[in-house]
C-alpha cells in the first residue's frame, strides 16, 4: 500500500490556493488544504475541497474530439489533427469575415504566461482585441 500527498495549486480560480492531492496506490483519492501556505493557510472553498474529483472521472475527456460535419458524431482525434483543424478554420474565418469575427477566452486555470501567450496570439497573429476571460462568462 502506497499513500502520499502531492503539493499542487488549485485549478479552479485565479487565487491559486495550495493544496495536496492524496494519492493512494496510484489513484488520486482526495484533497487536503495546505497548512502554512501563504495564500490559504489550510483553508479551501468548496471547489478546492473537491479539486481531485474530475481526475479519474469516467466522463473526463482525455483526447480532443472532432465533428467531421455539422451535426455529425464526435470522434476521438490526436492533438496534432485537432490543432491543425482549429488553425485552418480560424484562418478561413479571418479571411472571409475579418479578424474581429474571432474572440479569445483566457482562463483563470492557466498561468499568467499562458494567458499572455493567448492574447499575443489574438493580437499579433489574428489581429483582434477581442480578448476576454472565463470569469466573466
Amino acid at each position: 500500500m502506497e499513500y502520499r500527498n502531492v503539493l499542487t495549486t488549485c485549478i479552479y480560480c485565479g487565487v491559486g490556493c495550495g493544496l495536496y492531492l492524496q494519492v493512494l496506490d496510484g489513484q488520486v483519492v482526495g484533497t487536503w488544504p495546505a497548512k502554512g501556505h501563504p495564500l490559504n493557510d489550510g483553508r479551501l472553498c468548496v471547489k478546492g475541497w473537491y479539486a481531485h474529483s474530475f481526475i479519474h472521472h469516467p466522463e473526463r475527456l482525455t483526447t480532443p474530439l472532432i465533428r467531421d460535419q455539422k451535426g455529425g458524431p464526435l470522434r476521438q482525434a490526436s492533438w496534432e489533427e485537432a490543432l491543425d483543424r482549429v488553425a485552418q478554420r480560424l484562418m478561413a474565418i479571418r479571411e472571409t469575415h475579418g479578424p474581429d469575427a474571432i474572440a479569445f477566452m483566457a482562463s483563470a486555470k492557466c498561468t499568467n504566461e499562458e494567458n499572455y501567450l493567448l492574447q499575443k496570439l489574438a493580437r499579433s497573429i489574428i489581429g483582434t482585441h477581442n480578448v476576454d476571460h472565463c470569469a466573466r462568462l
Partner: protein
Amino acid sequence: MERVALVREAVKRLLDSGQVEGVLALRTVGPGSAPHLFHPGDSLDDLTLWPKYPLPKILDMLLAADPSVRLGMVARGCEERGLIEMAKRNQVDMNRIRLVYLACTAEERDECCCSWPYPSQIDVGDKVEGTADALVAEHERLSLAERTEFWKRQFARCIKCYGCRTVCPQCFCETCVLEDNLWVEAGVLAPPFPSYHLIRAYHTIGKCVGCMECENACPADIPLTVLYTLLRRDAEEMFGYVPGRSLEDLPPLAVETLWQTGH
C-alpha cells in the same frame, strides 16, 4: 535527543518489528508538512510533527482500502481519542492499528487551546497540562439573546465550503444531511440559520474530541469549537460521557446509556 528524532526512532522500531505494513505520520514538504505512509526501509529523515493533519481520518480510509492491512500511526492525544470514538462506531478496528503515542508541547497546546494535549500513554514528549479556551468563558458571560446575536453574526460569514464537515475524523456518514435540500437549500449563501451549523453541532455530541481541525479549516474564522466544547461539557454533566476517554464507555446516545442515566 530532539523530540522528532525520538519519534523517528519509535517509528523505525515499529516498522522493523514487522507488526505493520506502514506507519502513517507527517512528512516535511517545503515549509509545511503533509500526511505520508512510511514503509520499512524508508528514510525517516523527513518525518516531521507539525502542522498536524487529521491522521485518524486518513487511517480509516487506508484500513478500508485493504481489509487485511495492519498499520501504525503517530498519534497525539486528540488523534488517539478520535480513533477510539471511530472504533466504537465500527469505522476502524483497533486490532489492526499500532500507535506511537506523542504528547504535545506547550506551544502546540496553546495553538489549539487544547484542554487535553496528551494521549493515554506517552512514548515521546512530556505531558503538559491542558488549557481552557478563553473564548468559551467569554461566551458563557453572554445572555441568551447576546449568544443568538453572536452566532447569527458568525454563521452569516459561512461560505458553505463544507470544510468543517469534510476535515472532521468524526464525520463519516455516507450521506450527509447538510447536503439534503430539505435542511440546507443548494446554491444559497449563507446557509440557513441556525440549522446548518446546529445540525453539525448536535452531530458532534459524544464524538467530538476537540482536535481543532474544523476550526483551523474554516475560511471564515468561525469559532466552531466553542459550541462543540460546550456540548461536550453538557454531555459529561448529563451522561458522564467523555469522548475518547475509553473504548469501553458507551456513547451517550446508545440506548443503554440513556437507560442507565435515567433519560
